[in-house]
């Protein structure tokens, strides 16, 4: 019948493809090519919206938003080094009272794309603007520290008293408590300047006034965003942006697998393009067969820590012995395979909370076992805790948008080896967040999550996930871990200004928390990206696990 014929056709086709892959020995000398100034860089993005409104953005300092907006401070990252805070619009800040008051001085002669000078008042306006309800959704670590609980933004005519601008070059922040990481906070999107008095319209993101190397030339909703050079950007005053291409074009709403196909084929404009989303395991397996494409896949050395969070406030997981059993019950090897096919593409097994590439991180393993885990030890611990027959009916909630099904099933299968029976419950992204982050009395026992700090400090690894203040009410302490001793240590470490000293404190906290086993770290998730053959200087530093958009250029 015709279905049989179809099968034959497909099988022959598959063989053909395999044969092609083996013979495909294209020379791949393009990796060494250094990028020059000029050309058009293309970014193929799955997303349909591109947000250039700093108040609404959660963008890292080295990706999309950074092409258009500068911030008070910037990140310098390189392969083999922890990320450092460096001057951007201003210096890296000074404090005279142990971290409570911070003063930054702006460089001379900075201009917006419309030619007007960038002053401290514009930076202040940008920060104030992030408090307006109409411009929510961005990173808001500064809000609480600036004491803006009742402040609703500058459009109602009020200023934020905790920010002072004594002259056009100086800006001073008076915080509610000492905070050593404030220079890092000043590198978050809200610290990009917005010309004072502007930016009241809801579509500001489509024509934002630029301070970086590029300005928004055209913004076609859902289709394309074209960035062209900002004539008023001075490269000599910017140490974090290379500004190599003449134009950057974002193509929106691209299907991820199609992007992978196109970039692997490397023809026409796609030679000058890279994909903004991670290559999936299936795509990676496919790229293995194509030597040219394989050479153009860049995989990060490390990345966000993936973990199983254990609801420490719900029986039976309120017992530390039970929680420790989970450290041995998981199978990190199966998890690696389920997430990327191989350990090398998935990332190293994780045993600490602080991610690689962060200043002060210490490597340790409180619960050593094989990569496959140790179900017998887990069973023994459970028996000690009074559960000789294992655990029944635990609920593991999943965030659907994170594509976690295979990974969660790997966890489910691994725990079953230790007689821990788990049911999976998949929720849509914000239903998931409502359950894990907002609910007073959530019903989940376990959840799968991953965390990449929003700025390169151990503080951003630990405080959002483990401070008592972050339970429910929108915080990310989804293991609902509350330990007054740890809270006190966190507060001390946060108020330490010297990064080296603070780093030591954070490493100690990392160990202390894991003794209580509120989460089971799984892997430091690697991200893989693919780029066209004419894209140069496409690297991923130790932190964050994303390419540095600001340094990428086109090679001739």
């Amino acid at each position, binding site marked *: 019948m015709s279905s049989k014929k179809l099968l034959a056709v497909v099988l022959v086709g598959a063989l053909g493809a395999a044969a092609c892959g083996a013979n495909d020995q294209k020379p791949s000398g393009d990796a060494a090519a250094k990028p020059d100034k000029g050309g058009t860089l293309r970014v193929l993005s799955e997303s349909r919206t591109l947000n250039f409104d700093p108040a609404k953005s959660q963008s890292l300092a080295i990706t999309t938003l950074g092409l258009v907006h500068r911030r008070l401070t910037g990140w310098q990252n390189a392969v083999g080094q922890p990320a450092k805070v460096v001057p951007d619009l201003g210096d890296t800040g000074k404090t005279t009272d142990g971290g409570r008051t911070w003063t930054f001085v702006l460089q001379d002669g900075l201009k917006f794309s419309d030619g007007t000078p960038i002053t401290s008042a514009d930076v202040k306006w940008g920060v104030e603007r992030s408090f307006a309800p109409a411009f929510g959704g961005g990173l808001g670590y500064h809000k609480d520290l600036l004491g803006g609980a009742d402040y609703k933004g500058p459009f109602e005519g009020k200023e934020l008293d905790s920010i002072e601008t004594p002259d056009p070059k100086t800006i001073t922040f008076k915080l509610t408590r000492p905070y050593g990481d404030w220079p890092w906070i000043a590198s978050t999107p809200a610290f990009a300047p917005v010309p004072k008095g502007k930016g009241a319209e809801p579509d500001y993101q489509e024509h934002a006034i630029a301070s970086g190397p590029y300005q928004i030339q055209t913004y076609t909703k859902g289709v394309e965003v074209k960035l062209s050079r900002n004539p008023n950007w001075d490269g000599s005053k910017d140490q974090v942006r290379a500004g190599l291409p003449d134009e950057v074009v974002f193509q929106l709403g691209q299907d991820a697998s199609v992007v992978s196909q196109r970039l692997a084929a490397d023809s026409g404009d796609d030679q000058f393009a890279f994909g903004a989303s991670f290559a999936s395991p299936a795509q990676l397996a496919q790229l293995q067969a194509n030597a040219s494409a394989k050479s153009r896949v860049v995989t990060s050395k490390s990345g966000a820590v993936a973990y199983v969070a254990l609801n420490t406030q719900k029986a039976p997981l309120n017992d530390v012995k039970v929680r420790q059993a989970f450290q041995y019950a998981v199978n990190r090897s199966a998890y690696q395979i389920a997430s990327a096919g191989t350990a090398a593409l998935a990332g190293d097994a994780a045993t600490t909370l602080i991610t690689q590439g962060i200043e002060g991180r210490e490597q340790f393993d409180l619960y050593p076992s094989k990569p496959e885990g140790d179900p017998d030890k887990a069973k023994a611990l459970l028996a000690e805790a009074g559960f000789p027959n294992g655990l029944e009916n635990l609920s593991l909630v999943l965030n659907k948008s994170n594509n976690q099904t295979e990974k969660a099933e790997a966890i489910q299968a691994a725990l079953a080896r230790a007689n821990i029976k788990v049911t999976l419950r998949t929720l849509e992204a*914000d239903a998931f967040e409502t359950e894990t982050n907002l609910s007073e009395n959530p019903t989940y026992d376990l959840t799968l999550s991953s965390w990449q700090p929003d700025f390169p400090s151990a503080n951003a690894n630990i405080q959002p996930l483990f401070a008592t203040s972050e339970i429910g009410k929108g915080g990310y302490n989804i293991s609902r871990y509350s330990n007054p001793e740890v809270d006190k240590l966190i507060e001390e470490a946060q108020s330490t200004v010297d990064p080296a000293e603070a780093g030591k404190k954070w490493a100690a906290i990392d160990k202390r928390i894991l003794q209580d086993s509120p989460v089971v770290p799984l892997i430091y998730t690697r991200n893989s990206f693919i780029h066209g053959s004419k894209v140069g200087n496409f690297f991923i530093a130790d932190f964050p696990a994303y390419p540095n958009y600001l340094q990428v250029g086109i090679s001739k």
Partner: protein
Amino acid sequence: MRYALTRLGGMVLVLLIVAFCTFVVFYLVPSDPALLACGKPCTPENLALAREFMGFDEPWWQQFLTFLGGIFTGRTFGTGATAIHCAAPCFGYSFRQNTDVLELIGDRLPVTFSLAIGAAVLWVVAGVAIGVLAALRKDTWFDRVALAGSVIGVSAPVYLVGLLGILVLGFQLDVVPVGNYTAFADDPVRWAWGLVLPWCVLAFAHGAHYVKLTRSQMLETMSEDFIRTARAKGVPERTVVGKHALRNVLLPVVTLTGIEFGSLLGGAVITERVFSLPGLGGLLIEAVHNRDLPTLLGCTLFSGFLVVVANAVVDLSYGVLDPRARLT
């Protein structure tokens, strides 16, 4: 006239019910659409502000009435300099996409229509033609192949045929492009070429119904008295088939087309996912995943609107095609 008014009233009522049900179902979902505007970290104060701004702080029935009101009078979110205006007819404002919902639908509609109209033309024409031929050549090999093919077409899920099509024709043989949509206005040739595979796949799956329907209807009609009379009178066979029989056959075909066209959006959800086309179905799924209630309501209402209009068109065409129906 009275009929037309009742009809119109019925249509509006259908749409109201569809909107209401969507609203209620999505209200039962334990989630908070204001979360997306809350930021990270999201404090309860910020969340309350976001809710108020987006109009999610009112009780649900109030929100539903506000939504209905917006259709006639337009809406304004927030106050002062930062307020967002959504002009009448306002079918809501998607905070997720920062756009008026009507505009979003308008942006995606051409893709879905290109897909549906192209495929429908193909499947109706091919399906009816094959069905008529099969009936006229009953029990020949052509008839058998057509019947067997139509059973396969009816049985194979669209996404399976689509995926196989992509695999074989798109990737292995590389004869048709995959995952490329070009707007008609930009380049009509590339537009059509990019849609060839989806059209054929849809036509294969849907056309099968038409083959079966046309064939059986045709056989039935050909055995009826008026055909025999016409033949007895010496009317040429071509006229008998073309003028008398076909007209009778078209009636159920029109009904089926109407119904299928009305449920276009439901089908688009799957087809557009398989072929990665940026149409309304995709918008709908994105809206469900993002819990983008305004967009979802707009899409659902629009989908209901299509059904209602399609049904009305079917009824009207009955009058044209079937003289008997005109009297009632």
